[in-house]
């Protein structure tokens, strides 16, 4: 535990987190800082991006250069950062409303392009910051301010969708498992390509269904019999969700060139760190007369 305490104090900013006491964001925050401490992630080698939602406050509490963008748009910003500097570890924090409602288009396309970034998807199955409405992850029948008679919509499954869309690293954890999340984030970052890490996270204020107790009781780890390179098995496991049957761990992991690996211009160093000079365009005049 001393390692964890040390990392918490070294990576913090002057700001005191404003999440509700017991919020799953604390666990994700701690796990990220622990991983950062272990791997030396800082403003010289890493960048973080957040969308809008409770998760987005993360940028105020971590000592790494950050971009807090707009609701749903963290992935295109993260993709832009990675293309401009492919030496950086790029982490995109997002929520289920952020990435699966407003930003679902970007979620699918970032996965298919296999940009070398890690998406940490805070999945609390509710809109917390706007004080409790149904999210794309809320189960059918979910009662909230926006669905007082219970939601009639089926929830989206980000794991299934990511695997189907071309993501090459797909995993899930629960916000209480700080050390395990930390190891998972390190593995996700080391994977070349798009990594999705879904973190099941209680919203202690607005979601009284998915509590810490619920996740502690109903989750289990995928074991060695699960072949993480088998897409069909991964899809099958990603759809498993029942009492005592919510799998955690790495569902899918395959090696495939990342987007950045395939762009010739990016092979000669970080685009954004190069000198900007006036270019001679005379050679382009051919064809203009």
């Amino acid at each position, binding site marked *: 535990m001393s390692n964890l305490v040390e990392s918490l104090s070294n990576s913090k*900013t*002057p*700001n005191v987190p404003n999440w509700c006491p017991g919020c799953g964001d604390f666990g994700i925050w701690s796990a990220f800082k622990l991983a950062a401490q272990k791997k030396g992630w*800082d*403003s*010289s*080698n890493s*960048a973080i*991006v957040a969308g*809008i939602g409770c998760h987005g406050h993360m*940028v*105020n509490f971590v*000592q*790494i*250069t*950050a*971009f*807090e*963008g*707009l609701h749903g*748009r963290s992935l*295109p*910003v*993260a*993709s*832009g*950062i*990675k*293309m*401009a*500097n492919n*030496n*950086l570890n790029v982490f995109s924090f997002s929520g289920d409303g952020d990435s699966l409602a407003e930003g679902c*288009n*970007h979620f*699918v*396309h970032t996965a298919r392009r296999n940009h070398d970034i890690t998406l940490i998807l805070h999945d609390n199955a509710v809109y917390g910051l706007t004080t409790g409405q149904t999210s794309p992850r809320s189960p059918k029948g979910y009662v909230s301010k926006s669905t007082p008679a219970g939601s009639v919509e089926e929830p989206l499954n980000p794991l299934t969708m990511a695997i189907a869309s071309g993501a090459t690293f797909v995993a899930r954890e629960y916000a209480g498992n700080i050390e395990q999340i930390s190891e998972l984030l390190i593995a996700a970052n080391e994977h070349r390509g798009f990594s999705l890490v879904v973190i099941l996270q209680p919203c202690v204020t607005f979601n009284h269904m998915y509590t810490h107790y619920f996740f502690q009781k109903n989750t289990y780890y995928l074991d060695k019999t699960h072949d993480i390179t088998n897409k069909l098995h991964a899809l099958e496991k990603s759809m498993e969700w029942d009492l005592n049957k919510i799998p955690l761990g790495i569902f899918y992991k395959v090696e495939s060139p990342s987007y950045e690996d395939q*762009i*010739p*211009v990016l092979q*000669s160093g*970080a*685009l*954004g*760190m*190069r000198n*900007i*000079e*006036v*270019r*001679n*365009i*005379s*050679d*382009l*005049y*051919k*064809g*203009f*007369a």
Partner: protein
Amino acid sequence: MPNAQSKTSLNPNVFTFKIGGEAGFGIMSAGLNFAKVATRSGYHTFDYTEYPSLVRGGHNVMQISVSKDRVDSQYATTDFLVALNQETLNLHEHELIEGSGVLYDSDHNIDVSHLPSYVKTFELPLTHIIKEVNGSMVMRNSIAIGAALALLDGDLNILKTLIEESFGHKKNDVVSINHKACQIGYDYVLKEHAGDVKKILTPISGFTFNPDAPSLLLPTGNEAIALGAVASGMSFASIYPMTPTSNILHSLAPHQEKYGFVYKQPEDEISAINMAIGAAHAGARSMVATSGGGFALMSEGYGLAGITETPVVIIEGMRGSPATGLPTWTEQGDLRFVLHAHQGDFPRIVLAPGDVEEAFHASMLAFNLAEKYQTPVVVLVDKFICESHSSVAPFDYSNFKIDRGKLTLEKQDGYKRFAPSPDGISLRTVAGSGNHFVANSDEHDEIGYSNEEIENRNTQMNKRMQKLVTCSAQDMQAPVVYGPKDADVTIVSWGSNKGPILEALKVLPNVNYVHITWINPFPVEKLKQLLDNAKYLINIEANFSGQMHGLIKQHTGINILNNFVKYDGRPFYPEEIVERVKGI
């Protein structure tokens, strides 16, 4: 298309060649070849194309103004019409004037019998000629251009060279069949009509075309903008295709590796601008390009760049709107949109170049301004400027210096990204520099942490908005006056109207033109001075509500009483400007 009221041309020094046919006939490439033959013979040209959304098929037309001197506009009259189908004749015969020629496909049942006797017709049996050379229907335009060159005393060898340049990478027989086809067209009309040849494209004596260093180029506004971006050191472009600016991405994408930039096709315009912002956050010189509809999607990113103080260049090529509107036609209806898009206030710089040359320089300048002021810069153009080729000398940017403003890529002690500064501009850095900061869409403090306190809010808002004051003093360009200093009538306008207005001025000796190129910040004092001194003002613009008219009134208090607007998707014609001014 306005009716040619008189049966004479407004400017006899400009010859208008027009070719029309169904979509898929290769009208645009044929027209461009004609323009290039003129260029390589020492002439200036300006061309204008009209085409519907291709899903409906339909009528394509391209017209080329040819002149020994600079020419900046299309004209409403047609001196030589190539009709590849009946529709072309039906739609454009009213533009024909005394002495006009009509070259038509006599194998296509085109009826020319009703044309007035002052129009000379030339039949060309295109299907027969194609059979003779064992060619294909796409060669119709090569044959037609060959025949037109014969009647206009053009140099057929230039056309043959252009065909080689176009098809040289294909099998040799494609070139030789096309060569044979255009030669047959050329010979056919000469045999029948040797006495009707007009010396329009006679190569100018003493002029030599140097393919390695041409004295005149023929880029479109889109191409000029792309060239400007490359010259200005642009390193990242994310552009979702949209008429009329798609050709910017077509011009950029093939040259990434040679020049060391990245072009990325995003999933939508929201992603486009957010990617560009992300790339700029990590140090790239970033751009996007779109039209009004795409810019609507970019609106949220526009303000995001503003509050996070991230440089990004936005090319907005206007077309007839709203919604899908008139997708392939021109308009200037987005002026207020780019000025007001996004919630709240943030500093935005808006430039409105008026022709191909101005578009090139605005594009180059926009990248410097975006980095210097750490804010979005819009280059506002339109379909007319984006897709018209215009003769320009190779761009002179020898005095251009890259200005990245206050920027450090090195680690700084006690760094504060958004520290206040009298000019509103803080020392910028990028992700990966080792300096911790937060580019925050929430209002934020000097480091970038979210902060909603009164004093901080006021400090940061004032700091950001101060950048426009600094820009007004250091970079803003005053309107340019064309024509006599003292004039009976002063035309006020902006953007692509410049060309037709300059052509109109050629026959309006006591009229001058105030050309506004900076929309925000706005050159209030200089413009007010110019307008106060004018005897009679007329405002010209291509939108329904007179958006510039209102902007001038808002800034200067001057209410221009004569407001000439147009919103039919067509650009202004010199003829209608002359008519309007003469009617005063």
